[in-house]
C-alpha cells in the first residue's frame, strides 16, 4: 500500500516537474525542476526493483550532468535583463521546493515502509547490481558496444565541428 502510494506520488512529481522544466524561461529554474524530476524518477526505478539504476540516476544525472548544465549556464553569461528577471522573488520559487519536499518525504515514507519491522511488501522483482552487470555486459554486450562507438564518433564530430578557426588553418596540408 505504502509502495503503491509512493509510486503514484513520485510519478506525479516526475510529470509535473518535467512539464515545468520545459516551460520555464529562466534556464536555471528549468535545471532545478529537471533535478526534481530526476529525484522522482530515481524513486520510481527503486520501486520497480532496480536500486542500482536509482543510485545512478541520482549520482550521474542529478549529481554530475545537471551540475555541469548549471556551470555552463553560468559561464554563458546571460544578458542582464534575463538575469534580473530571474532574481526577482516570485511565488513560483516555492514550487520546486514543494515538489522536492514531497519527493523526499515519499522517499522517507518508502524507507520506513521497507524497514524490516514495518515491511509489508517487497518489490516483486529485484535487480541486484550483479544481475544488472550480467545483463549489460553479457546479454546486451553488443548493444553497449554500439552505443559506445556512437558516443566516440559523436565526441569526435562535436570537436571537429566546434574547433576554433586557428586549428583549421594549421590543418591546411595535403
Amino acid at each position, binding site marked *: 500500500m505504502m509502495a503503491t502510494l509512493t509510486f503514484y506520488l513520485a510519478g506525479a512529481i516526475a510529470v509535473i516537474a518535467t512539464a515545468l522544466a520545459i516551460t520555464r524561461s529562466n534556464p536555471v529554474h528549468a535545471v532545478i525542476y529537471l533535478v526534481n524530476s530526476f529525484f522522482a524518477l530515481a524513486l520510481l526505478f527503486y520501486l520497480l526493483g532496480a536500486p542500482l539504476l536509482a543510485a545512478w540516476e541520482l549520482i550521474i544525472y542529478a549529481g554530475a550532468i545537471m551540475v555541469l548544465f548549471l556551470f555552463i549556464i553560468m559561464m554563458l553569461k546571460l544578458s542582464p535583463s534575463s538575469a534580473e528577471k530571474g532574481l526577482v522573488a516570485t511565488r513560483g520559487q516555492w514550487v520546486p521546493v514543494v515538489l522536492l519536499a514531497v519527493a523526499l518525504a515519499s522517499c522517507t515514507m518508502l524507507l520506513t515502509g521497507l524497514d524490516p519491522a514495518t515491511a509489508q511488501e517487497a518489490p516483486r522483482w529485484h535487480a541486484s547490481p550483479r544481475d544488472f552487470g550480467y545483463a549489460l555486459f553479457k546479454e546486451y*554486450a*553488443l*548493444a553497449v558496444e554500439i*552505443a559506445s562507438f556512437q558516443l566516440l*564518433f559523436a565526441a*569526435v564530430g562535436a570537436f*571537429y565541428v566546434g574547433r576554433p578557426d586557428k586549428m583549421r588553418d594549421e590543418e591546411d596540408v*595535403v
Partner: protein
Amino acid sequence: MSLLELKALLPQLLMVLGATVVLVAGAWVRNRRLWLLTGLVLALGAAFIAGTVEPPVAEVAGMFSTSLYARFCTIAWSLVIAATLLLSGRYADLHRYGGGEYTSLLLFAGTGMSLLSAATSFLGLFLSLEAFTLVLYILIAFNRVDNLGAEAGLKYLVFGAVATGFIAFGIALIYTASGTLHIAEALAALQVDGAMRPLGLAGWALMLVAIGFKISLVPFHFWTPDVYQGAPAPVGGVMATAAKGAVLAAFLPLLDGLGVAGGEIKQVLWLLAILTMLVGTFSALSQTNLKRMLAYSSVTHMGYLLIALLIGGADGGQALLFYLVVYSFATFGAFGVITSWALEDGEVQNYDDLRGLGYLHPRRSSALALFMLSLAGVPPLAGFFGKFGIFHAALQHGYLELALIGVFASLVSLYYYLRPIIVLFMQERDAHQLRSGSGEEFVLLAGCCVATLFFGIYPGPLLDLIMTLLP
C-alpha cells in the same frame, strides 16, 4: 557473444574498426587522399566479405540477422559509402576537410545503416538508426564556414532529436505490451485474435512518426529541402539514397510481420502515401534550386516506395528493392554532378547559374539529364521499370487509386525534371566555366550512367537477384 557471432558480423566489424583506426592514425598523418582511399578499400572490403563469406550463425546476439536480405543491404550501403568516398576526393580538398574524420564518420554511418537493415530486435533497430543519424548531424554541418550548412545541421538535429524521442517511446510501449524486444516475438505478442492490442497500436503510431521523419513522408518532410540545400553535396547523396533506403529496408520485414493485424497501420500508410506523392510533386514544381528540387523529388519517390511497403509480401518487397536500387543510382549520380561542379565558395545549384552550362560541360550535363529522365521514369531508362514494377504490383493487390495517383504524379514530375535540362541545354549561354571533373568523379558518374541505362534495357539480372532475396 561467441566467436562465430563475431564472424557473422565481419563486414560491420571491418568498417567500424577500420573507422576507428583511420580516426586515430588520421590524427598523426594529415593526408586527406590517403584516408579517403583507405576508407574506400575498407568499404569495398566490407561489401566483398558480405557477398562472399557465408555467416556461420543466423542471428547475432538476438539483435541482428545475417539473412541473404541483410547481406544484400550491407553490400548496397557499403557500396554507397565507397562511392561517396570516391566522389569526395576533390570536394574534400576544396573545403579542406579533415580526411581522417570525414572518412571515419562515413564508415561508421555505413556500419549503422547495414546494422539497421539487419535488425531483428527493437534495441538493435534503435541503436543502429541513431548510430548513422548521429553521424549525419555532424556530416551535414561538416563545412564549418558555410552558414547554410550549420543551419541545416541544427535543423536536422532538432527534428531528429524529437523523432528519436518518438521512436524510443513507441518501442517502450510495444515492449510494455509484448514483454520482449525481439521484433518477431513482439509482433506476435501484440496480436489478439487477428487484431492489434491498443497499447501496441499506440506504440506503432509513435514509430510511424519517427519513420515519417527519417524518410521524409509528407507531414514530416519540412526539414528535407533546407537540409539538402545546406548539406555538402556528397553527404546529400548519402542522405537521399542509403540513409532512406536503410530505414525502408528495416521496416519492410517489420510491416510484413504484422500480418492481418496491421490493417489500421496500413490505412495510415495509405493516407501518407497519397499525401506524400501529391504534396511532394506540387512542391517540387516551383523550385528553382537543383538541390531543393531533388529534395522534393526524393519526398515524392518515398511516396511511391510507400506503395510498395503497403503491398508488402514478396511482390511489394521485390518492387521496393528494385526501385530503391535504380532510384539510388540516379539520385546519387545527380548529387555527384553537383559535387563535381562545386566551387570553393559554394555549389552551383540555382537554375540561373546552370543556364547554358550544357555547352561548356557537355558530358556532365548529359549525365545529369540522364539521371533526371530516369527519375522521371522515361521508358528506356531504369527508373521506368522501377515505377512500372510498383504500379503493376499496386494494381494486382487492389490499390488502384494509389497506382493512378502515382502515374499522375509521375506525369507532372516530367515538368520539374525537364526544367533543369532545358536550362542546361536550351538557353543562352551565360554560365561561367567550371572546373573540369577529376578522374574518380568521371569513373563514378560513368558508372551511375551505365547502371541507369543497363538496368533499364536489361533489368533481368537484378530482378533475379532480388527474387532470390525475397522469395
